[in-house]
């Protein structure tokens, strides 16, 4: 008799297929034979945030390789140094898939700790997942207030303080001679989670420094035409702006600015103007535009220059974020050693009580609520390079006013 693959029989075979596939996935080493520390991370390796995810992955891998080169992390509980095994899972820049990836890391890979995902929409749901499975989650790139509201017990968050970050343009503007400063400012924050949260904070910070915005409007994400908005800026005589938008949108915006003939003496980009891709897309037109950044290889901290150079040698471009991710690993590794155990709750406690000295982000100290802050930096494209203009510590360059387009 010819058997047909229809109905429940096929359903049953499919389930067998699933079981077989799952059995094919590696199984974790029993705790008693612990000979490595398994650290997992779900990252946007594909999708909209893949550029950020790739930098994050590289930094995590470098930190793991560096600590392993030293023999690993000494864990008192086992009275030996244990190497770090890093497992990265792609989340396709999708929160639902990030949560699923956490499940896999926890249940299949049996990770001891989790390193941060990328940006608030991915970090928050993964922090919730870590909370569910009681695995310590060492997070970053998540705005602090929404994270604090949740009162998480199994994660911490290391990020910039919104008030400090939004004050940067005004502190930089204050360094420009008054006669040269822009007279009319615009606030253009993208219509996204971060844009909507940061927009009002920019306004508040401006007020504190004595600056008012003469024009403000959300920037549509992924739009191919900003010309009507740019014409409005031109008609209102705007000569300085803060632009919070993704890389592609910033490129489109600046291109159309030039086409329409809008000259901004001071354009401080957030989020989308720091990447080498931004320079590659615009070339000379990117000159004088400012960018935010989590970190600078010009920071006077141990290994900062070395990590930056290593990244440059690998990718032939500079990064303003890898140091943050590298430092995140450094603090986790130090906390594990300080705790002397792989117990997540105890390691989190160690994170809160340890003073982390000499990371590539400088010294780091967490608050009792699980947060720690770092100053957001500012850079300016000068001769094709991102020169740090803020913070005003050793190695900072003065900010330059952009001349009219025809004189650049």
């Amino acid at each position, binding site marked *: 008799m*010819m*058997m*047909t*693959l*229809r*109905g*429940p*029989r*096929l*359903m*049953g075979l*499919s*389930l067998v*297929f*699933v*079981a077989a*596939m*799952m059995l*094919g*996935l590696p199984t974790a080493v029993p705790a008693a034979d612990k000979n490595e520390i398994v650290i997992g991370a779900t990252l946007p*390796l*594909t999708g909209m945030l893949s550029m950020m995810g790739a930098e994050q992955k590289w930094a995590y891998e470098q930190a793991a390789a560096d600590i392993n080169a030293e023999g690993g992390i000494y864990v008192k509980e086992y009275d030996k140094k244990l190497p770090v095994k890093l497992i*990265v*899972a*792609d989340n*396709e820049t*999708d*929160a*639902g898939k990030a*949560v*699923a*990836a956490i*499940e*896999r890391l926890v*249940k*299949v890979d049996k990770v001891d700790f989790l390193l941060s995902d990328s940006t*608030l*929409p991915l970090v*928050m*749901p993964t922090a*919730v997942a870590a*909370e*569910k499975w009681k695995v310590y989650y060492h997070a970053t790139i998540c705005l602090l207030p*929404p994270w604090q*509201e*949740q009162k998480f017990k199994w994660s911490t968050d290391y990020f910039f303080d919104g008030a400090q970050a939004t004050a940067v343009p005004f502190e930089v503007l204050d360094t420009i001679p008054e006669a040269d400063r822009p007279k009319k400012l615009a606030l253009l924050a993208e*219509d*996204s*989670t971060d844009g*909507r*949260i940061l927009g009002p904070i920019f306004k508040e910070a401006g007020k504190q420094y004595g600056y008012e915005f003469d024009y403000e409007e959300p920037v549509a994400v992924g739009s191919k035409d900003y010309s009507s908005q740019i014409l409005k800026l031109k008609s209102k005589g705007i000569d300085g702006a803060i632009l919070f938008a993704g890389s592609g949108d910033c490129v489109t915006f600046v291109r159309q600015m030039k086409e329409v003939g809008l000259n901004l003496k001071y354009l401080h980009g957030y989020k989308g103007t720091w990447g080498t891709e931004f320079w590659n897309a615009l070339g000379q037109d990117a000159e004088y535009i400012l960018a935010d950044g989590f970190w600078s290889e010009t920071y006077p901290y141990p290994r900062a220059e070395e990590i930056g150079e290593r990244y440059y040698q690998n990718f032939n471009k500079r990064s303003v974020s890898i140091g943050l991710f590298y430092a995140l690993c450094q603090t986790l590794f130090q906390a594990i050693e300080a705790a002397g155990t792989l117990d997540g709750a105890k390691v989190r406690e160690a994170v809160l009580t340890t003073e982390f000295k000499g990371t590539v982000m400088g010294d780091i100290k967490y608050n009792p609520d699980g947060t720690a802050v770092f100053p957001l930096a500012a850079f300016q494209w000068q001769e094709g390079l991102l020169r740090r203009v803020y913070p005003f510590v050793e190695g900072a360059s003065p900010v330059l006013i952009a001349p009219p387009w025809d004189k650049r």
Partner: protein
Amino acid sequence: MKTMGQNSKSKRRLALTVVVVALLTAVPGVLDPETSYVVFLLFSAFIYVALAQAWNLVSGYTGQVSLGNHAFFGLGAYVIAIGWSRGLIGYLDPLGMLLAGCAAAILGILVGIPLLSKLRGDYFALGTLGLGEILRLVTIQGRALTAGPTGIFLPSSSFTTIVPYYFMALFLALLATGVTYYMVKSNTGLALVATRDDEAAAAAIGINILKFKVLAFAVGAFLAGLCGALQAYYVFHVEPQGFFSLSWTIYPVLMCVLGGVGTLTGPVVGAVFLTAAFEVAKYYLPEIHPIFSGLLIILVIMFLPNGLVRLRRGRIVRNPKAA
């Protein structure tokens, strides 16, 4: 009238279904649900089975290719998030889920009547595609009601075990398959298939085409809303980008295509197979898994355009001796 052979076949199918369901019911008892990834994987697969059946009912049996499942899925999630965050419903509340499904069904009727009466084919597909985008923007602009782009956080401390989620997802998969089976085997099913095959002929014999199309669309929306509600309970964070993501429509479509559009078991087979295949690809090829997944889909559409469940049937037709 059924022959003895058909009766025997039906009984055998029913028995096999009961066995498979019994085995699935036993899974959380056999495997430790807190440490076994298979339990979570099956939970995901069940949700996809229900979503794929929802799409199959509208597109496979009724012939109206809808690309708006993610709108109903997201709406169901937001009903739970808004209701729970305001204390109107509770944790894993069946009434809340019913409400979520009904809200999606009502939206399905409201949108379905104008769209299904005016649009056909690609235009209908594009119309439904726009629905998800509209709802995404509405929730982003929803201020306090939807918490804007940040979304609504739900009390994750309520979570104790995955077991109730597993059984609720299994129930949804069975419900979606059962509803589809019931509708297809009833007069409604005949009307739906007649509408799909030839609208003019169906209308000529007195079938109220719009009524049946809207009915299928609303039932599909109801099922998608239920799935969104359960996912909201599981993720504890409902936000516009993730819950109105087009992947909640595209994946179920692919699952139906792989398994067999317009068949009862096709979406089940497709959902289980693709959930597992994608999972393994993500594990072993973390950076290039979309290439693997894309390749798999291309190969399936090239070589199995009618889906896996028709594979053997096709061979039989091509090989008369085997028949």
